[in-house]
């Protein structure tokens, strides 16, 4: 009983706090009579969101599609690369610095190149998403693989297990919790990646919608789009968390209990 009460209070505290902030925002906008094209109040934003919902959903659809495509491709590349880098030490030494260096290149500066090379379609956006998502996923997977307790590996070696069997039965499962923490970071970044891609030139998507609204000083529309982007990121994050519970149910350390 008490535990249940505690969970309710725990989720209520941030909700109440956010609610208070919104009320304060609305109040200040009204009292100070701030122009709508400068900063609209939350109620006005909700109104715009409701009014533009069909249009926003259409844009969100293509943004989400780019996200998911990029996300899945990033996962696949990470898995393949991590497997070879883990099993072939020379490859790891060769590739690792390159991997880190690739992250120091600002995405925003290379994204326009993709548009020059691949046009205004979906592909350049998907590439940006892949670039944004790939690094956290690959790094967490590699970290997880490297952190596997050596004693497990010795045990499997003493049982004459093949390298593939050891990878499949020991390394991969033990690296999955770390992999999922990287996946969660990527999930929340992926929408941002797609939006950046769309900003620089696209036919549709939330980024396009945002740039258009911005250019015509429809700040309420910009905020409505931001709200949709946030919701998409949260939805992807939640999806990954659900997948995590489904794929590694054994990793729920919080429900720890002892028998006997």
């Amino acid at each position, binding site marked *: 009983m008490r535990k249940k009460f505690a969970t309710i209070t725990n989720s209520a505290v941030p909700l109440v706090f956010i609610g208070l902030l919104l009320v304060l925002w609305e109040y200040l906008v009204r009292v100070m009579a701030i122009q709508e094209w400068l900063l609209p109040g939350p109620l006005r934003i909700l109104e715009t969101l409701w009014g533009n919902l069909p249009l926003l959903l259409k844009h969100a659809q293509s943004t989400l599609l780019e996200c998911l495509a990029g996300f899945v491709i990033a996962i696949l590349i990470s898995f393949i690369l991590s497997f070879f880098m883990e099993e072939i030490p020379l490859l790891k030494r060769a590739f690792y610095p390159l991997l880190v260096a690739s992250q120091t290149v600002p995405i925003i500066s290379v994204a326009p190149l993709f548009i020059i090379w691949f046009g205004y379609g979906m592909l350049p956006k998907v590439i940006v998403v892949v670039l944004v998502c790939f690094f956290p996923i690959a790094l967490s997977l590699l970290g997880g693989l490297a952190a596997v307790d050596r004693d497990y590996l*010795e045990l499997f070696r*003493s049982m*004459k297990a093949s390298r593939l069997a050891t990878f499949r039965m*020991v390394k991969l499962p*033990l690296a999955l919790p770390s992999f999922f923490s990287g996946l969660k970071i990527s999930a929340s970044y992926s929408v941002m990646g797609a939006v950046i891609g769309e900003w620089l030139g696209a036919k549709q998507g939330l980024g396009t919608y945002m740039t258009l609204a911005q250019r015509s000083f429809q700040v309420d529309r910009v905020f409505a789009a931001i709200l949709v982007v946030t919701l998409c990121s949260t939805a992807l994050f939640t999806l990954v968390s659900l997948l995590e519970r489904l794929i590694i149910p*054994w990793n729920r*350390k919080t429900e*720890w209990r002892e028998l006997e």
Partner: protein
Amino acid sequence: MPEIVVKGVQITLAGLLTLREINLVAADRSVTGILGPSGCGKSTLFNIISGLMKPDKGSVFIGGGDVMGKTGLVSYMHQKDLLLPSLNVLDNVSIPLVLRGMPRKAARTEAARHLQTFGLQGFESYYPWQLSGGMKQRAAMLRTYLFSSDTWLLDEPFASLDAITKRKMHTWLTGVLEQFRPTVLFITHDVDEALYLCDKVYVLSECPTVVKLEMSIPFSRPRQNRTILDQAYGAVRDAVMDALSI
């Protein structure tokens, strides 16, 4: 058949002469204890016997055959249970069978036949984090047994357990040893544990390690809780303690 013989084994690790000259024999179907101070290379010795490491000098024979650098001939049980957190008890203990190429389903059926003996019946679908320390070690022991039924290397299998659980495990293990009669090499820091379980005890010196004492334990197997009251017990225990210089 599976007599373990270690002959003149020497190894230098990281520039330090770890094992100087180790000679020991674990007779067929007997339990042989190995006692020694921390860091004297007991685990290194096991790594050599199990084929994970190659010594600089000397050789290891199991059942008369030279097994240097050959893995997969003996079962090696570590102080840690090393159960995979991703698998339930039944899948964990059937790993050796699956690795040997048995289909997963057949491996499960085969492993399930032994759950009773290892005190795990009813827990087959539990994950390691749901088990107590004693149960985890029994599961690790079953996995050890399913890999090799006749030659076991046990590296301080009970070191992480509390005194009461440890005692219970001793009584239980005595029964298991009587039932399967494997050849066992047993590393421990606990003199009473060694005297309770072993037919023979080797005491190793500090680094560079040699065998300091080889002693047969005169009490008949299976031992009982009252073995400790045997008239000879005190003298045997003193001799081992002296060799350990405690």
